[in-house]
């Protein structure tokens, strides 16, 4: 066996898994954390450490006393040196006091200026931030009347139900399945009907209210925050239908990482999203929702899960296009071409990437 960068990656992955396991089992608890961050006794921390958090260190350093012991411990000449030092200190006292006094003033002024800068926002920052917010609102057409939009373009409840039903079996026997972006609670309802415990989170308060009216558990919180808040391993299944296309790739990766912590080992995980491999989806229907940020090619999504350690990752496409070219033509090149065109243009409109949380 020779070592390569990938071997090192594997070692580090296992190292992290070991640490995580010990954290989860409670072996590596807060008391050990305290030991690992115990300050060096006997004085100030190493200055290079303080530099990492100067605002915390600054007030303490400013208040620090400097002790100087003029006593010399040398044999025979010690007392003479001590007297000489004391005399010098006496002679220089007022000059040194003037210098240190000025330095003290400089230090106080600089510290005050820094704290003020930190606490008082930069002039114009608010305005610039608001501009960015506006840009984002425009980007996703946040001013659109969502109720009308839903009525015109929103999915049909029976259709969504039929689609979701295909995945229910994966969660058989699970007791706490999390539906990210639970919407009207169609999947939660299905889980309930099959005797599977579950709950949802959604950003839209109206959706959360609808769920609660139906007696389903739902919380108004964004996916990533929620995943980071809950206890490690406390969820034993995850379902996220049409969530991934509403967020940026980096956030998706963060969600997967947070899932890794939040999910019990082996928990089934399903993400459903439009299938841009079908060109009529990727080039057209995907964009009928202005809140869609970018399409995710199925192979890329599969890779995202694999690279975060999810196991047995597979892709499943569904929802065939309604209109297709007629394949009822004489066998031979023409039929092959028509088939290829159908596949490329009029293939399945959605896909699911299915995996299991890392063990």
């Amino acid at each position: 066996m020779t070592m390569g960068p990938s071997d090192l990656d594997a070692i580090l992955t296992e190292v992290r898994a070991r640490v995580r396991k010990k954290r989860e089992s409670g072996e590596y608890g807060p008391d050990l954390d305290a030991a690992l961050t115990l300050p060096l006794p006997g004085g100030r921390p190493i200055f290079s450490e303080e530099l990492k958090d100067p605002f915390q260190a600054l007030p303490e350093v400013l208040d620090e006393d400097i002790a100087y012991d003029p006593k010399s411990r040398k044999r025979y000449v010690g007392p003479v040196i001590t007297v000489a030092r004391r005399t010098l200190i006496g002679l220089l006292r007022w000059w040194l006091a003037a210098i240190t006094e000025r330095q003290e003033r400089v230090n106080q002024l600089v510290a005050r200026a820094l704290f003020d800068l930190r606490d008082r926002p930069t002039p114009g920052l608010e305005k610039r931030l608001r501009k960015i917010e506006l840009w984002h609102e425009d980007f996703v057409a946040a001013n659109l009347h969502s109720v009308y939009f839903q009525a015109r373009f929103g999915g049909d409840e029976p259709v969504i139900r039929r689609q979701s039903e295909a995945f229910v079996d994966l969660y058989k026997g699970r007791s706490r399945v999390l539906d990210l972006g639970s919407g009207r609670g169609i999947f939660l309802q299905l889980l309930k009907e099959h005797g599977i415990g579950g709950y949802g989170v959604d950003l839209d308060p109206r959706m959360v209210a609808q769920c609660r009216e139906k007696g389903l558990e739902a919380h108004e919180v964004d996916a990533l925050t929620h995943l980071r808040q809950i206890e490690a391993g406390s969820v034993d299944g995850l379902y996220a239908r049409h969530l991934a296309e509403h967020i940026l790739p980096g956030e998706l990766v963060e969600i997967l990482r947070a899932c890794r912590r939040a999910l019990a080992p082996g928990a089934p995980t399903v993400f459903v999203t439009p299938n841009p491999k079908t060109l009529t989806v990727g080039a057209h229907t995907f964009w009928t929702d202005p809140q869609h940020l970018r399409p995710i090619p199925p192979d890329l999504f599969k890779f995202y899960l694999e690279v975060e350690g999810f196991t047995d990752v597979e892709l499943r496409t569904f929802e065939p296009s309604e209109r297709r070219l007629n394949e009822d033509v004489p066998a031979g090149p023409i039929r092959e071409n028509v088939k290829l065109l159908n596949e490329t243009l009029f293939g399945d409109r959605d896909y699911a990437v299915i995996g299991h949380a890392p063990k």
Partner: protein
Amino acid sequence: MSNHVFALRKKIRHWGYDSFAYAVEAKPGVADVRSYRRLFREVKPDDLLIVHFSMGSEVVDQLIKIPARRVLVYHNITPPEFFSGINPHAAAFARLGLRQLARIAPAFELGIGVSEFNRRALAQAGYEETTRVPILLDWEHFAVPPNEAVLARWKGLRSVLLFVGRISPNKRQDDLVRMLAYYRRCIDPEAQLVLVGAFRDQPQFHARVVALIERLGLGGAVHFAGGVEDASLLAYYRAATAFVSLSEHEGFGVPLLEAMRFRLPVVAYNAAAIGETVGAAGVLLQERDLAETAEAAAMVGERTELREALVAAGEKRVLDFDPDKVAERTRQVLGI
């Protein structure tokens, strides 16, 4: 004074030149080193003066007035931030050294960094001609039987974590101690940490690390071996289960290569020149996480296959710093 100087002197003499080592302040007991004062009368304009620089000194400004070809070898200066508040004296000399490094740049025809990290520092300090030549290692002084007493004490224990380097705030022995707290709680309650290295220069830091050990209840688990002779050092490398470095500043990191040479797997936090010295022949940690460091050290100690792979990679890595190759390169850049 580093072994590098003596190894270099040996090579230069071997090439048929007269070569002498001079020191501003030589450790007592180091034979055959001349006082720097003799430089002023002994060096002739045709001579080559190789200045090894790693700390500020009052005499540097005088040295550069000696008429001769002048080359600087930079071993790096520990940034003063590590000493500030702990050892004001060392901090002041480090600051002085950094200022001097820049000030004396025009006096040298060439600046040699013993690592790319050091070479970059030289270029930043204003050295026009810079190059990298690694430290010239001399394996011959390890051609001794390992110290039996050390082997008998440490060999065969399940976890003996070793770090070799002066006890100094930049080497972060304090974090090694904290890491041991995790190791003993979560991996092996009998684990031992051996810190080889002189603590003469940094008594304040040493005392505080000792206090930390007491505070963490690790008395008896951390062994300060002090500066040791080659036979003992060899025995420590042979007896340990992993070499662990959490050092935040190294200009090169000779002990990393010594560990590899003596078949000890290396786990190191990647800082300063450490990454380029270790290469892919050790577990290089990009994030400073003590728990992960401990687990990595345990893994390389326990897994035979992994250990063998790292040892093999380490032995191969050492060949990249083969003394003959380095000597040849030195000769080339010095133009002798």
